C-alpha cells in the first residue's frame, strides 16, 4: 500500500431521479497508480468520475482531492471526457482544442500566449498529432480526436488524470500510443484513473483496479484482486480470468 491518498471518496451516493446509480461508495485511490474502473453497463462508472470532478452532485457523501474539496483543487485534476460528449463540427482546429487545456491555469479573461502555444504544440507532438495541428477537428479520425483530447489534458500539467473510456472506438495504434503515455504519466508520479471496458487488457495496462456495480465491489492492486471471485461478483455471471485471454 502506498502512503499518500490522491482521491478519497467517502459514503458517496448519487441518484438520478431518486434512483441511486451509486450507493454508499468508499474508495481511496493512492497517489501514483494507474487505475481502471471496471463494471457492467449502468454500473455508475462515468457517474463516479463525474462526481469526483464535481460535475455531478451527490445526494450524500464527500470527495477529497489530496485532502481538500475539488473546488480548491481543480488545477490538480485533468479530465478527458468521452469523445461523444462534444460536437466535433465546432469551427476550431486541433491546436485550438489543445490550447483549451491551458485555460484553467490562465483563469478568467487572460488569453493564451506564446508559452501556452508552445506547450500545446509539445503536447500534440507527444501524442503524435503535430502534423494535424491545423486540421479542423471534424476532419480527424476517431482515434486522432481521442489523442487531441489526451493532449489537451497533458497541457493542464495536473497531478491527477481522469479519463472516461479513452479506448472506445479508437484504432490499435492509438490505443498503444495512449497507454504508453498513461504509463509514462504514472512513472513520473501522476495518478491516472480510467473508466475501462476491455477486461482482457486490465492486467496488461493497469496496476490498480476498482470493481464497481452501483456499489463498490473491490479496490486494490491488479495482482491482488483481479480474480474470478471479484469478476463474478461484479458481472453477476460465472466469470473467469482465464476465459478472458
Amino acid at each position, binding site marked *: 500500500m502506498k502512503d499518500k491518498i490522491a482521491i478519497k471518496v467517502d459514503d458517496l451516493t448519487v441518484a438520478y431521479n431518486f434512483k441511486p446509480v451509486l450507493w454508499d461508495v468508499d474508495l481511496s485511490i493512492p497517489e501514483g497508480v494507474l487505475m481502471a474502473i471496471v463494471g457492467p453497463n449502468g454500473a455508475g462508472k462515468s457517474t463516479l468520475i463525474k462526481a469526483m*470532478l464535481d460535475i455531478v452532485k451527490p445526494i450524500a457523501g464527500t470527495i477529497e482531492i489530496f485532502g481538500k474539496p475539488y473546488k480548491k483543487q481543480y488545477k490538480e485534476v485533468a*479530465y478527458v*471526457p468521452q469523445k461523444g460528449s462534444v460536437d466535433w463540427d465546432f469551427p*476550431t482546429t486541433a491546436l485550438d482544442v489543445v490550447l*483549451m487545456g491551458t*485555460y484553467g491555469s490562465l483563469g478568467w479573461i487572460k488569453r493564451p500566449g506564446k508559452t501556452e502555444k508552445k506547450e500545446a504544440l509539445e503536447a500534440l507532438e507527444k501524442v503524435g498529432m503535430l502534423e494535424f495541428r491545423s486540421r479542423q477537428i471534424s476532419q480527424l479520425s476517431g482515434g486522432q480526436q481521442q489523442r487531441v483530447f489526451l493532449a489537451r489534458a497533458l497541457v493542464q500539467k495536473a497531478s491527477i488524470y481522469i479519463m472516461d473510456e479513452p479506448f472506445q472506438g479508437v484504432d490499435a495504434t492509438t490505443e498503444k500510443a495512449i497507454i504508453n503515455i498513461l504509463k509514462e504519466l504514472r512513472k513520473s508520479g501522476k495518478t491516472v484513473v480510467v473508466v475501462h471496458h476491455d477486461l482482457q487488457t486490465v492486467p496488461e495496462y493497469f496496476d490498480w483496479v476498482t470493481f464497481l456495480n452501483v456499489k463498490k465491489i473491490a479496490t486494490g492492486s491488479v495482482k491482488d484482486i483481479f480474480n474470478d471471485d471479484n469478476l463474478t461478483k461484479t458481472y453477476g455471471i460465472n466469470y473467469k480470468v482465464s476465459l478472458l485471454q
Partner: protein
Amino acid sequence: MTSAQIEIQLIACIVAVACAIPGTFLVLRKMAMISDAISHSILPGIVIGFFLTEDLNSPWLILLAAFSGILTVVLVEYIQKTGLVKEDTAIGLVFPSLFSIGVILIAKNAGDVHLDVDAVLLGELAFAPFDRMIIGGADMGPKSLWVIGIILLVTLTLLLAFFKELKISTFDKQLAATLGFSPVIMHYGLMTVASVTTVGAFDAVGAILVVALMIAPPAMAYLLTNNLKKMLLIASGFGIIGAILGYWVAHWLDASIAGSITTVLGVLFFLIYMFSPNRGLISVLYRQKRQEVEVHLLTFLLHLQNHSEKSERHINHLNEHINWHKVRAQSVLDLALKNNMITIDDSIISLTEKGKTFTSEAINYIITNKSAAIEEMKDRFFLFRG
C-alpha cells in the same frame, strides 16, 4: 442619399452586427429557436416597462423586457428539467404564454397609446430617424442609433473579454466546468446579451427581423469557415450586406425595410447553402457522386485482379457478372481507360501495370482501414477523377 437614408442604413448595420455576435454562439449551441422565443416573450416586459416609463427607449424598459427574455430561458429549462416534456415542446409552451400576456395587457390598457403588437413584431425602420436624441437643445441623431450603438459596444467589450470562456463553454461544457469556468454564468450571460439586443433592436427593426439577423448570418458563416473568429467576422459581414442590400431592395420595391432585409438574408443563405465550396449542397453531391463512381471503379479493378479466366473479363459479361446497368458499367469502363488502368484487347479486359499497382495498394489500405491514405493515393494515380 439623404441623411435619413444614411441613418437608417447605419442603424440596420449596427443592429446586424449586434445580433450576429450572440447569434453565432446560439447557432453553435444549437439554441437558434431560443432567440425566436425571446423575441416574442419580451412583449409583456415591454408593455409593463412602457406603462411605467412611457418611453420605448428608456433603459428601464429595456432591462425589464430583457428580464422577461431571461425568464423565458429559465422557464424553458425548468420545464425541460422535469423530464416530462422535451426542450422544443417547452419552448413552444413558454413563449406563446408570455407573448399572449403581453397582447392582453396591450388590449386592456393601451388602446390609446402608441404601442401595438404590429409595431413590436415588425418594427418600422423607416420611422427611426424621426425619433431624435436631443441633449441641451442639440440634435445628437436618432435615439435608436444610440440605444443599439451602446448595446453593440457592450456586446463587443464582453466578447473581447470573455471570448475564451465563451468558446470553451460552448465547445465543451464539462471541461469548462472542471477548469473552474462556470458554464451556468456563461449561459445566462449569453442569454442576457441576446435578450438585451433583441429588446434594443425591436423598436427599430422589429422582433422577427431580430431572429433573422441572429440566425441567418451565423448559419451562412458556419458553412464557409472552420474558425470561430472568422465565423464571427463573416457573420457580421453578411449581416451588414443583408442590411444594406435589403434597404435598397425595400427602396426599389417601396416595401417594408425589415421584410426586405429578411428576404435578402434568406436569398443569401440559399445561395451559400447551394454553392459554398466545401459544405455547399452542390459540392457535397458532387463529391458523393465522384466517390460512388470511384468505389465502383475499385470494385471493377478488384474483379479483374481476382479473375484471370477470359470469360470473366469479357466486356459483355461485365454487367451480368457484377450486376451493373449498362450506363454505370460504361462510365466505370471509361474512367478506367482514361486513367490507363486497363487495356481492352478483342473485347477482353486486362489490368495494366499501373492498374495492378493501384489495386494492390488500395486493397492494402482498405484492409488496414486507412481512408485518408486512399484519398491521397487517388490523387497520385488518377489523371481524371470520377
